[in-house]
Every structure is written in structure tokens, then in C-alpha cells.
């Protein structure tokens, strides 16, 4: 769906005719290149006489003077002015507006254009989406919008993506924006479980994986409070509104088919020692070469990686249907990771339909999608300890080991071949998202709408390890183990809105009032089993699921929290821990008869089931005065079941004004657009809080199976715990933000842009602290009197360099600067985070959060070189004369958040060819190279672990300690040539069945410019927070490398 240029000029056909002063009725059809445009505005110039086109694009306007001029407008299209010249039938074809300022922005409960917006908003439509192998919706707009930092956590297919709008407002891990898909705000919690396996399990998955990127029409980003306050308590981190394609532009049944084939390979690697170099270095450091030599010559990174082919198929059908239209799509994609045993498969189906009734006064809109996602995860873990995970093991594996899955190296080290062949982690997720709305036009300009949304997801992740004949990472030889987690998730939405849009003289009033209720129900089962009847991984997975289901289904009632059996449980005895709804003792642990499959020796399962509700009232008024002065006011009241009676409701007001200077007569013609904007507002945050923390909740403790296959609650009796320290005073985090901006355009907006400055302050930071002892286990979640301040500048510039029939060339550039700081935090309170993992690094960390520092500030010893014996030396901070890496830590004036994000897109078309390219860059941040800290030192070569070639020349002494220090802290600045695509529209006669045929070739992650010594500086491994609850950023540890991908695509329309 590239922009075509065939809409060269407006087709003001049949302009000529006899002028007539006689009033008459004019009718006709408004359309664009693809078909009729419903809802376009038709106005007799200089009067208030106007109407809107109906659903088929038809309009009829009476009492039109024969010499009048009609003004026809529709958002996203150039406004047309047409002289009536006495005609009674005037058909108008509107031209799509290429200028960025006319881009339609879907705002909460409505739409506007960048030109008419009062807040900081941006939109990217399908024409401008990134192309290539796209796994998730965020990638479509990566780098396109100033102030929006989108980073995939790794190159793992289906892995999570961090989308950060204007910095981080929250200490804890919830800086994700609110996602709204076709009007349904999604839950902030992941619907896909993460599950522990031999070395960790699957990583967090992208919550938007269920959406087929091919179905998306546009993505709007609401950045400031004046825009997001309509979403109140969920708007503090910005709002991303995803709108899917409808069939409304299809005049006749259209089938579109697109297909792509991608090939991915390792883009950047590490320079590890080969067999000969390795043995030479072992000898150099005084090791026993003979003992270190297992005889083979294996390139372990090569062994675990591969060149992977991926495919993506989409077919869509759109048509007018009855009194409306429909679009149906099917999508299939399978992406293989460049590390073996990782893949992502998605099957999606979607139907979007609209029907009109009662003389088009009543409109029914339905958007329904179903998806199935199958994830396969390699045994990777950012929290892997001394043994490492698959990637860490491949980096450090002795290159003389044979590439043999039956080879067991001594010393608890991991043979990567063993990990690959004896572990399996698969996740299946089914999700249905349905949304139906009814809108009724009660009177001219007054509409009532009821919207119901239903979002259901069922996901099951299972990880199994077969150590029956050889030890596998953390699982001892002779054992077979499996963990599974199933999560069911139902999110219901019911919304009612009343909107009113009317022009009174020079004043247009656009008002909205609404009520919304949303409930989020989550339930799930965690099960762990040991001692499987089979050693085959797929069979073990079936046995795990089967045993859990069989036993669960044989138990009476629904009140049980836990059930399990182990080798000590005789016959069909199952221990069940139930929580009864009433009674004196509501916790019952009993042995009952239950069905066992006999497929596992020990099984323990634990269930949960919680519901959280949000209820909201909201209103918004937009005033447009003389098309020059824009005023917006918003108010939302949100009530949440996550807070106690005293703080249940939060109130989130906002306001904004804009002045279209370019509409003023005194401005002349220098600017085609000039608008000043200013706004302020309050938004809230309650995401990721967990269930009912203001109440005392008691449950049975967790489940586990010991190395002896004893289920913990059978051996020691179940314990009942208070889930967390209750805090009746818990309340909303609130963010006050200010935004001022200017939108400008020159030369008919061929050159345009916007500049924004903002500041936001988030108070009452929600975070867990250890409660004042004595307290229950875990922390108490409370509102810290601490503030996070973010301020920044964003600049976006768009230029159309050439725009002729044969050739167009345009560029879009954006750059943003953000800084943040924590203030007002008690000096005795600090949070250690950014765990550094690896051999001898238990409890090691690289970051600390305390007062007056930016989030993700690095805190560690300052490395000052090696002494004459080759031992590392460190700066002395405490003044005792000795530089100790543990005692002499300090802030090292470095943090992990990029100060500057920039993106540059180039778009060019020439006749039937089109070309686009996109560069991205991040600057002013540091990365801790935890991989090097863990593996690439002389100390590791002594224990027969492989290292990178640079270790050869390090003056480091063998066995020098490996504390966290600035030795492994590096600048992360980079520029990435992210994307280049060339496409060709095959010229067609128009007589055949094909309407359109396009071929394309796209390369992704083509070049990386950086001084960072690791694989890729754009990483964020969740290495752990040492219990502080403060997330980690900017730590590189065994990161899944980003692939370089070449995609061939074909797109045909019939």
C-alpha cells in the first residue's frame, strides 16, 4: 500500500456550465480514488448551509445558488472548492493529502488531524509503515515518531518490545503505554505466561503478538496529558491507538493477496577463540593443555545458530455488503529465530463489518479477530548464573569439546548440544478480540453510542527437561522435570458515550460525555512435575499437561487452590488444599481420592483467579472559534478495585489551547501552516500493581518439588501466608505534565514540521519496600514521596523534495531529547538493580536508584587499570587507601537511557519503482557488557572456558577477581541502517483479473555503526532486580542477537 501518484491533480471535472443565480438543489457523490467517502462535509462557501455525504458517498444540498461555491472536505484529504455553475449534479473526487499535518489522528473516542489537534499527537498510516519481516505492530512505526523510543529487547522472534513515550515516569516496571485496539483498551498485563525451564524459560512475549500487522490501517500516538487524559488513570505513559483496516474503500469485491519470504542470518558476532588459539592461551596462562583438550574443534556459536527462512501469507477480501461493507482477512506467518529451537508462528483471522439501519441513523460496527500464536523458545535466560544459558554456554564452551549431545563435560559446565537436545519450551496462545458498537444519531449532531468489547485469551506454556541420562544445567542426572503455566484472561468492556457536534456561527462545539466499565479477569494454573514415564520431550510435554488435567478434573468442586501427589502418596491419594467460601477454618488440607495418570511420579499444581475492575466517567469539549482558536478540556474520573475506599477514585483533568496563526490575516502567506499549542493535565498510573494490595489476602504458600521428588506441601504440610503486606492507603501515581508546541508548514506544507517541549512530574511513586520489621514476607507496596521528572524536546521535520507525476522524493526526520531525574527520595532509601549474572557474580549489580540521579544510573567501582602483577585496581572512594571493588562503589555519571533518539526515513518513487529507507540512532547512554564480565576474562580461560580473542593481550592476571566495575561499562551510541526496500508496481493493462501487482525486496538491520564491543548495544536483558522491584535497562547479557533479514515480497490485488 504505497502512495501512488496517479492522484496527480484534483479532477474537477465538468466545471463549465451556465452560471445561474437561481437557487437549486445540488446532489452527487463524494469519493476518493478507491471509492465513495461517507461522512465528507459539503458546505456552501460563506454560509452555514451544509451537509455530510451518506454512507455511499451521496449528498444532496438544497437552496444552493447557481453561482455558489461548494467546499468539500474530509479529514485526510485535500479540501476542494468547486463552483456550482448552475449544475445540479456534482461528483467530487477528493485527493488524499500527502502532507503530514493532514494525517488523521484517532484520538480517544474521536478523530482529528495533526493540523487541528491541540495536544501532542502523531499518527502513522499504513502507507508509511516500515516494511520487511514485521512480527509485531510496534515495529511498523519504529523510528517514525519523535519522542517514541521503540526497542526490541532482542532478536528473538516474538520477544517483547519496549515502547517508551517521552521517557520513564515510573520507578517500577510499568512504563508501557496504554494500547487501544479498535476502541478496546487492552489490559496492561501479559496474557502469555513465562515459564521456568532448565535455564530459565521463555522470555516475556510481546503483548501485541496477536495482531496481524497486515491488518492495521493506522497507529496513533497520544503523547501529552491533554491528549491522554481522556484515558485518565491509564494515560500517564501515553496511549497507542491501533485501528484496523475496514472494507469501506472497496467499490466492488476485491481480493488482495500478499506473500513474503525472508531469510535471516547473524548480523554481528563475537570473535571467539578457535581450538588452536584456545589451547595456546590455556598454555600461556599456565593451564594444563592436555587436560583442557577434549580433542575436537567446534565452533559453538555456529553450532547453536542457523540461517533461518521465514514466511508470511495474507489474503483479504473486501466488499460492499448489504447496507454497509465488510473486510475479512486471513494471515499466516512463521518466523524462525537465528538461534536454533526458537520460532514464532501466528495464524490470524479477522472480520471487520459495518451495517447501517434506520435511514443510516443507526450504525453497527463489528470488529472481530481470532489468533493463534505458537512460540518455541530456546533455553535462554537473562538470569542464568554461573552455568550460563544456551548463548552463554556457546560463548564459553571449550572449543575442543565434540559437538555431541551425549558428551558431558566435567565441572557442572554446560554442553550447548545437551541443552538444545534435552529441553523444550513451547507456548500456545489463542486470543479472540471482539468489539461491537451501535451508534444512533438522535438528532442532527447528537449521537449516542454503546460499545461492547470482549477480549479472551488462553495461553499455555510448558517447559520440559530430560536429564534422565545426562545432567542438564540445573537438573540433576537421572531426573526428568517439567513446568507448565496456563493463563486464561477475559477482559470485558462496556462503554456508553454521547457526542454532540454543532456549529454556532463561528464557533464549532464538539462535546463528548461517557461512561465506561472494564473488568479484567485472570485465572491460571501453575503445575510442576517430575519423574516422567517418557524421556521424549514432546511426549513429556503431553504427559505433563495430561496429568495435570486428569487429576484436576477428577477433583470435586472448585475451591481447591493446590493439588498434588508424590512418590510418598499411596494409591490414588491426592493432597488437596482448598479455600472454602465460608466457615471457621476456611483452609482445608486433605487427602482425597483422585485420578492419576501414572505418567509422572510427582505433581504439584497451584491455581489463582482474580478480577480487577475499572469504572470511569469522562467528558471532553472541543471548541473551534473562527477556525483559528482551538480549546480542549477533558475530565475523567476513574475508580479502581485495586485501591481501598479512601483512594478508590482518581480525577484526571486536562486542558489545551491552540492558535492557528496561519489563519490570521496579518500573517500573510509566508506560512502555509503555523499553529501554537499549549496544554497541561494530570494522568494516573496503576498498571502492574497486582491484585487487591490494600487488603489482607491469605493463601496457601507456593508449590515445588524437591530433588528427591517430594512435593513441598505433602512433606511439610501446607503453609498459609499473607500474600503481601496490606496497605490500605495505597493510591494512584499521578503525573502532571505540561506541553507546548508549534506546528509549521511552508510552501503548501511541502516542508512541514513540529517542535514540542514538555515536562512531566510523577509523584507518589508506587514501589515495594521491605516493610518496617517485623512484617510479612515480601515487600509492602506503597506510594513513596518521590518524584520522577522528565523533560525534553522533540522535533519532527518532513520535506517533499520533489512531487511530479513521474517522481517523488520525500524525507521525514525526527529527533528527541529527554532527561529524567528522581527527586524527593529519603536518603536512606535506595534500590539496587541491574543484576550482573555469571560465574562468581551472585548478588552483583550495576545500577542503583536513589535521590537526585536519573533512572537506570550505573553505580559501581571505577576501574583504574591493572597493577604490575596484572590484578585490577579501582579508585578508592571511602578513603581507606585501598580501592576495593565492593566497598568503593559510586555513581559513575552514566545511565542507560538514551538522551537522544533520532530517526530518518527516505521515500522515493520513480514511475513504477519505489524506494524507501530508514535509519535510526540512539545517543547518550551506556551499556554494561555483562557478557564480557561473565565470560571474557583470563579467569575464565583457567577454568577451560572459551573467551574472545582480545583476552589474549589483556595484561590481566589469571584468577584476578571479576567484580562489577567500569571496566565493562561502555558507551552505547549507535546508528543503525535499519531498513531499505525497493518495490516495483508491475504495469498492468487493466483488462486482466489483476488490478495491481507489486514486487518488493527489503533488507533489515543492514548496518550498525557503533563503538560498543559487544554484539549490539540496543539491548535490554532482564537480568534481575535483586528483589528491589526496579527494572533493569542497558545491561547486555547473552542477548539474543538481532538478525539481518532479507525479504522478498509479492502483493497482488484482484
Amino acid at each position, binding site marked *: 500500500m504505497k502512495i501512488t501518484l496517479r492522484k496527480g491533480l484534483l479532477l474537477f471535472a465538468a466545471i463549465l456550465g451556465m452560471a445561474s443565480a437561481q437557487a437549486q438543489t445540488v446532489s452527487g457523490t463524494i469519493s476518493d480514488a478507491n471509492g465513495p467517502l461517507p461522512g465528507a462535509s459539503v458546505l456552501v462557501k460563506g454560509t452555514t448551509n451544509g451537509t455530510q455525504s451518506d454512507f455511499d458517498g451521496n449528498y444532496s444540498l438544497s437552496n444552493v445558488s447557481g453561482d455558489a461555491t461548494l467546499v468539500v472536505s474530509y479529514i485526510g484529504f485535500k479540501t476542494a472548492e468547486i463552483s456550482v455553475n448552475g449544475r445540479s449534479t456534482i461528483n467530487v473526487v477528493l485527493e488524499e493529502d500527502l502532507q503530514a499535518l493532514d494525517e488523521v489522528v484517532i484520538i480517544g473516542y474521536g478523530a482529528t488531524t495533526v493540523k487541528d489537534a491541540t495536544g501532542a499527537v502523531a499518527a502513522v498510516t499504513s502507507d508509511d509503515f516500515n516494511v520487511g519481516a514485521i512480527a509485531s505492530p510496534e515495529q511498523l512505526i519504529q523510528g517514525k515518531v519523535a519522542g517514541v523510543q521503540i526497542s526490541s529487547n532482542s532478536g528473538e522472534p516474538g520477544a517483547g518490545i519496549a515502547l517508551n513515550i517521552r521517557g520513564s515516569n515510573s520507578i517500577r516496571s510499568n512504563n508501557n503505554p496504554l494500547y487501544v485496539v479498535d476502541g478496546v483498551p487492552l489490559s496492561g498485563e501479559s496474557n502469555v505466561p513465562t515459564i521456568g525451564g532448565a535455564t530459565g524459560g521463555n522470555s516475556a512475549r510481546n503483548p501485541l503478538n496477536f495482531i496481524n500487522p497486515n491488518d492495521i490501517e493506522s497507529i496513533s500516538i497520544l503523547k501529552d496529558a491533554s491528549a491522554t487524559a481522556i484515558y485518565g488513570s491509564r494515560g500517564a505513559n501515553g496511549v497507542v491507538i491501533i485501528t484496523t483496516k475496514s472494507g469501506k474503500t472497496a467499490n466492488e469485491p476485491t481480493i488482495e493477496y500478499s506473500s513474503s519470504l525472508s531469510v535471516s542470518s547473524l548480523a554481528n558476532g563475537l570473535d571467539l577463540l578457535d581450538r588452536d588459539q584456545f589451547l595456546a592461551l590455556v598454555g600461556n596462562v599456565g*593451564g*594444563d593443555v*592436555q*587436560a583442557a583438550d577434549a580433542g575436537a574443534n567446534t565452533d559453538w556459536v555456529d553450532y547453536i545458530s542457523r540461517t533461518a527462512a521465514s514466511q508470511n501469507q495474507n489474503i483479504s477480501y473486501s466488499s460492499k455488503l448489504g447496507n454497509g461493507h465488510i473486510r475479512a482477512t486471513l494471515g499466516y506467518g512463521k518466523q524462525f529465530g537465528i538461534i536454533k529451537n526458537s520460532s514464532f508462528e501466528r495464524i490470524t483471522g479477522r472480520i471487520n463489518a459495518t451495517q447501517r439501519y*434506520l435511514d443510516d441513523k443507526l450504525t453497527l460496527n463489528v470488529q472481530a479477530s481470532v489468533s493463534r500464536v505458537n512460540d518455541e523458545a530456546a533455553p535462554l535466560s537473562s538470569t542464568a548464573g*554461573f552455568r550460563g544459558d544456551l548463548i552463554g554456554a556457546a560463548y564459553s564452551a571449550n572449543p575442543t569439546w565434540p559437538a555431541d549431545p551425549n558428551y558431558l563435560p566435567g*565441572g*557442572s559446565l554446560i554442553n550447548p548440544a545437551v541443552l538444545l537436545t534435552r529441553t523444550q519450551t513451547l507456548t500456545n496462545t489463542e486470543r479472540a478480540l471482539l468489539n461491537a458498537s451501535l451508534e444512533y444519531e438522535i438528532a442532527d449532531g447528537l449521537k449516542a453510542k454503546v460499545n461492547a468489547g470482549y477480549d479472551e485469551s488462553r495461553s499455555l506454556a510448558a517447559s520440559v527437561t530430560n536429564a534422565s541420562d545426562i*545432567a542438564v544445567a540445573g537438573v*540433576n542426572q537421572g531426573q526428568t522435570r517439567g513446568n507448565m503455566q496456563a493463563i486464561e484472561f477475559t477482559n470485558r468492556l*462496556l462503554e456508553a458515550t454521547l457526542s454532540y457536534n454543532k456549529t454556532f456561527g463561528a464557533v464549532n462545539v464538539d462535546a463528548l460525555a461517557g*461512561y465506561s*466499565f472494564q473488568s479484567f479477569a485472570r485465572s491460571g494454573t501453575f503445575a510442576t512435575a517430575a519423574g516422567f514415564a517418557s524421556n521424549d520431550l514432546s511426549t513429556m510435554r503431553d504427559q505433563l499437561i495430561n496429568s495435570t488435567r486428569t487429576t484436576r478434573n477428577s477433583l470435586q468442586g472448585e475451591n481447591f*487452590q493446590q493439588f498434588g501427589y508424590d512418590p510418598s502418596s499411596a494409591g490414588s491419594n491426592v493432597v488437596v488444599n482448598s479455600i472454602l*467460601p465460608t466457615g*471457621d*477454618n476456611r*483452609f482445608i488440607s486433605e487427602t482425597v481420592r483422585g485420578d492419576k495418570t501414572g505418567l509422572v511420579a510427582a505433581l504439584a499444581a497451584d*491455581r489463582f*483467579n*482474580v*478480577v480487577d475492575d475499572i469504572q470511569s466517567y469522562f467528558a471532553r469539549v472541543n471548541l473551534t472559534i473562527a477556525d483559528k482558536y482551538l480549546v480542549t478540556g477533558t475530565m475523567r474520573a476513574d475508580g*479502581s478495585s485495586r485501591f481501598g475506599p479512601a483512594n478508590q477514585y482518581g480525577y484526571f483533568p486536562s486542558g489545551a489551547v491552540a492558535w492557528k496563526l496561519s489563519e490570521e490575516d496579518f500573517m500573510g502567506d509566508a506560512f502555509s501552516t503555523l499553529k501554537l499549542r499549549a496544554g497541561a493535565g494530570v494522568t494516573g498510573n496503576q498498571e502492574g500493581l497486582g491484585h487487591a494490595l490494600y*487488603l*489482607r489476602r*491469605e*493463601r496457601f504458600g507456593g508449590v515445588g518439588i524437591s*530433588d528427591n521428588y517430594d512435593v513441598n506441601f505433602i*512433606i*511439610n504440610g501446607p*503453609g*498459609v501466608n499473607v500474600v503481601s503486606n*496490606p496497605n*490500605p*492507603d495505597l493510591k494512584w501515581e499521578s503525573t502532571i505534565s505540561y506541553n507546548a508546541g508549534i506546528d509549521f508548514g511552508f510552501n503548501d506544507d511541502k516542508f512541514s514540521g513540529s517542535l514540542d517541549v514538555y515536562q512531566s512530574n510523577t509523584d507518589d511513586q508506587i514501589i515495594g519496600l*521491605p516493610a518496617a*520489621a*517485623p*512484617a*510479612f*514476607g515480601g515487600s*509492602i507496596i506503597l506510594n513513596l514521596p518521590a518524584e520522577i521528572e522528565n523533560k525534553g524536546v522533540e522535533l519532527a521535520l518532513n520535506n517533499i523534495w520533489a512531487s511530479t507525476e513521474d517522481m517523488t522524493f520525500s524525507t521525514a526526520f525526527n529527533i528527541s531529547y529527554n532527561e529524567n531525574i528522581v527527586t524527593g527520595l*529519603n536518603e*536512606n*532509601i*535506595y534500590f539496587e538493580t541491574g543484576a550482573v549474572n555469571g560465574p*562468581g*557474580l551472585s*548478588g*552483583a549489580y550495576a545500577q542503583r536508584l536513589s535521590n537526585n540521579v536519573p533512572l537506570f544510573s550505573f553505580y559501581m567501582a571505577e576501574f583504574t587499570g591493572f597493577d604490575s602483577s596484572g590484578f585490577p585496581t579501582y579508585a578508592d572512594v571511602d578513603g*581507606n587507601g585501598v580501592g*576495593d571493588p*565492593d*566497598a568503593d562503589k559510586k555513581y559513575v555519571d552514566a545511565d542507560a537511557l538514551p538522551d537522544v533518539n533520532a530517526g530518518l526515513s527516505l521515500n522515493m518513487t520513480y514511475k513504477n519503482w519505489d524506494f524507501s529507507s530508514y535509519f535510526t540512532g540512539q545517543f547518550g547512554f551506556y551499556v554494561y557488557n555483562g557478557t564480557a564480565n561473565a565470560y571474557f576474562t583470563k*579467569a575464565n580461560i*583457567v*577454568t*577451560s572456558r572459551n573467551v574472545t580473542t582480545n583476552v589474549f593481550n589483556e595484561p590481566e592476571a589469571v*584468577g584476578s*577477581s571479576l567484580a562489577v566495575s567500569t571496566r565493562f561499562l561502555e558507551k552505547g551510541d549507535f546508528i543503525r541502517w535499519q531498513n531499505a526496500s525497493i518495490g516495483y508496481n508491475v504495469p498492468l493493462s487493466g483488462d486482466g483479473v489483476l488490478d495491481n501487482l507489486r514486487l518488493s525486496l527489503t533488507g533489515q538491520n543492514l548496518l550498525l555503526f557503533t563503538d560498543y564491543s559487544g554484539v549490539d548495544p540496543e539491548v535490554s536483558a532482564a537480568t534481575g532486580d535483586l528483589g528491589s522491584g526496579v527494572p533493569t535497562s542497558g545491561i547486555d547479557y547473552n542477548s539474543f542477537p538481532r538478525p539481518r533479514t532479507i525479504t522478498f515480497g509479492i502483493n497482488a490485488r484482484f
Partner: protein
Amino acid sequence: MRTNRLNLFLSLSAAALVAVSCTDLEVTETDSVITPADANGSTFVGVADVDGALNAGYGTINGLYTDQAGYYALQEVTADSYLIPTRGSDWGDNGLWRQLHQHEWNATQAFVGGVWGGVNGLQLIMSEVIDPQSNASSTQKAQAHFIRAWSMLTILDLFGQVPVRDVTLALASFPEVLTGADAVAFIAGDLDAAISGLPAASDFASREKATKEAAQFLKARLMLNKHIYTNAGAADASDMAAVISLVDAIGGSHSLQAGYFDLFRDTADSETIWWVGASVGNNIWNGMHYNQAPEMAGGGWNGFSTLAEYYDLFEGDAFSNNLDEMGMAADGQEERRGGVPQAGSLIGDIPGGSDGNGDGYADGSNIGNGFLIGQQYDYDGTPLQQRQGRPLNFTRGFGQFSNLDANGNNTSPELINNPEETGIRVIKYSPVYGAFTPHKIAFRYADAHLMKAEALHRSGNSGQALTLVNELRAIRGAQALGSISDQDLLDERARELYGEFVRRTDMIRFGQYTRGWELKASASVGDTKWNKFPIPLAQLALNPNLTQNPGY
């Protein structure tokens, strides 16, 4: 018709909207028992399941006893009994272990914070059980009194001050802080309640939970250390008399038993007063080398080692601690020092042993007991190697390999930069009986026996004390002592109770915790601030009733 359907849809939508409108947003009990806060902000209305809370309490204790980090590290690694050298990249761990042994920790030390939170949490749960609103039975209450006393005594011993929370107040209120005599009195009160309310020990399995004897033992320990907690200088005679009578009471149903290493199994013996269901695995594997019984679950972690001076407290050869083919001491060592076998045992010779890899030998039988020094052997008698191919020869000294002399002492000892083979290893629970058997001894009669001897000695009755000590030594196959001194008593406890969570407390009681030992930081020697751990920094901000211990 279509319009009718639509009207129906519209009406249903409207009805649905009305139905859910204006919800009270109250949380329903879907998977837990929920209690809202009262007007004072307290959410406590009694424990919903007393047995569940008690079990959770025992679970917490099991966790504390399982790990070699946390409580064990604070009691043993900070004393002269263990050190964990950094071996290449291994066991650096952010300096955690090194700081403990060298006495250089501070108020942000991770183990200190973890133990503070976990052990204090135990007190709160038990206070809830004891509160009348929980309607606990008298036996349940007695259990709770015992666990609370254990928790508070542990905190008092480590930190010198105990925060106490009134369970009926809001969690936001500041807990009161008890010190010195007040704290001792509170704990003693709990123990008296436990002693009177708990049943006497019956079978071996019953000793996994608190018994009358366990409460008597804990009170004896409290009284023996009371003068330290109250900063009284010397032990009070009446306290010592209390220790003696408490131990005598325990002696009614417990006694010393011959066969030292058989005590550390999950089979019945006459010494165990309280055992916990904590896995013995960490205590086995934290010191073993990677190549010792690698086929066994767990495998060696090659960390924990002891000091040569601790090893030298025992009778026997200073450089060799071998067993002969019959498993008998070959180097003149007493039974408690154990020894290194020259080969493994055939599976048929070890009842209860396992042979997972089917090599005919009982798994782990080549490792031995007690103190492992010098060359270690594989099952078939082959000398084991470390991973660089050198002999696996555990040394007395620590530091770089090139600085080791012929006797395994190091001419320039260091805690960092160690090769794999430095350090004498200690193993009390044998892997032959399971790599992760959930059975660890918390209280043992030999400890009570030595407490009584010490109380007699402190009361001026050294003659009876000597008799008691020699009674134990005779059972352990050690030569009788001719006289008894403070040092003798401390050393006897070191020989009998190594690795049993008491070394730090013992050394403080005998005034030796601040003395110098191998690889302790010289600046820390003689500084009494190390006798108490610092209050974790954040706690000072959260509870103004706490004051930081002097020196931190």
C-alpha cells in the same frame, strides 16, 4: 423484523449498561481469604488457618537452615570456621563472602538484610497466632511461642535489638524496639509458655516440630548468653543454675550417642532434640570440588573451606587426614575429624546407598567425612585431578598456586586469586545417604551437654565441667583432658559443633570474635562493633524507633 431485532439489541445493551453501571468496585474473594482494613488501618482479625500459619513458620525456618547464604553465613562464615576464597571467576559474588570473613561488611550487606526481614517476619506471624482473635489451641499457641522465641532470640543475637509489632495496629505504625534485659525477659516469657504448653518429645519424627525439650534447650541457650545481651560483663549464677536445670530436664529423654557421623542422618538417634526439614545438599556441595562424585545430583560447588587453624584444633596429623581400607583413621585423628577414603565403597557395603551410574560403587562414597585435606580419590582409587589437570590436593593455605609450599601452606596468603584446590573442606552430612535429604539438625543433646559443662565452669564448678567434657570426648574417641579452661570449652564446642550454626555466638560469648584470624582484615581486629550486625539501612528510614548499632 430487522428493526425488532435491533430494538432488542439496543434494549439489551441498555439493560447491560444499567446492570454494570456504578459498580462498587469491591473485590470479591475469588482465590484467597480477604480482610479489609478497619478504622485504625489494621487488617488483622485473626489468622484464618492457625496450622497453616505454623507450617508457614516452620517453612521459613527450613529455608533459613537450607541455604549456605543468609543465616548460616552470618553464624559461620563471619567466624573462624569457614572462608570462601574467590577462585578465578568463582565465588566473587559482589564481595559478599569476602566481607563476611574479613569483617568488612556494612549496612547494605545482602545477607544481613535478608535475615533481618525473614526472621523478623516469623515473629509477626507467630504473634498473630498467639493473639486471641486467632482462637489457637493451647498447643498451637505453645508452638507459636517457641517459634517466636527462636525468631526474637536470633534477631537479638545478631543485631542486639528486636523490633516488636502489636498485631492489632496498622502495618503503617512503628514497631517498638526491645533491647537488653527487656528483650531477654520477653523471650524467656515466650519460652516458659512454650515449655509448659508443649508436649514432651516422643518418636523421632515428632522432633521435627517444637517439643518441650526444644523449648528447654532454647531457653538454656538464652540464659547461657544472657550476660552478653544485657552487657552484664559476667554470667549471673542464677542464670547458670537455670541452664543446668534445663539441660538436666532434657537429659531425661535425650542422651549422648556414639558414632559421630551417624548423627547426621535421617535415622533415629538419642541426641537429636529438634531437626528441621531443610535439605542438607547445600552443606554437602558448597565445599566439594567439581570432580568429586560429579555423577551425583548437585555436584560440587568448590567454595566453602575452613582455616588450617580450625583443623588444627583436632588431634591428628597436621598435613594428612586419611582413612585406611577399612575406613579407620590412618593419621591419628580423632573420630570427629573424619577422613579421606582411598577409594569408594561397593554399593553392597552401604545400606541405603544408591548407585545411579551403575559403576558398582555407592554414589558419593569416595568423598569421606569431616575434614578433607590432601589428595582426593575417585571410586576406584585413582587420584582425582582438578580441572587444569593438577592433582586434586586440598591445601592448608590460600592464595596463588605459585606461592604454595610443599606442605600446602601459602607463603603469601590471599582470599582472592585462588586456584581450585586451596583450602581444607568440611563435610558433615554424607552424600552416601542422599544428596539433598531434607533432614538437618537444629538442636542436639551434645550441645546441651556442653552448655551444662560451660554453665558449671562459669559457676566455678570446673571439676564437674571437666567430667562432662571428658564424658563426651570418651564417646568421641578423643583423649581425656586433664583440666578445663575457657579456651578448652570453646575449642571443645568447635570440635563437636562445627558447621551447626553456633560458632559466631560461641566466639562472642568467649570474647574471641574480634580476635585476629587468618585473612581477617587487620583494621577490623579488636573492634567490638562487629559483634553486632548493622540494622539494614532502609529499616532506619522505615522505623524511627530503631537506632543504628555503634560504629556503622
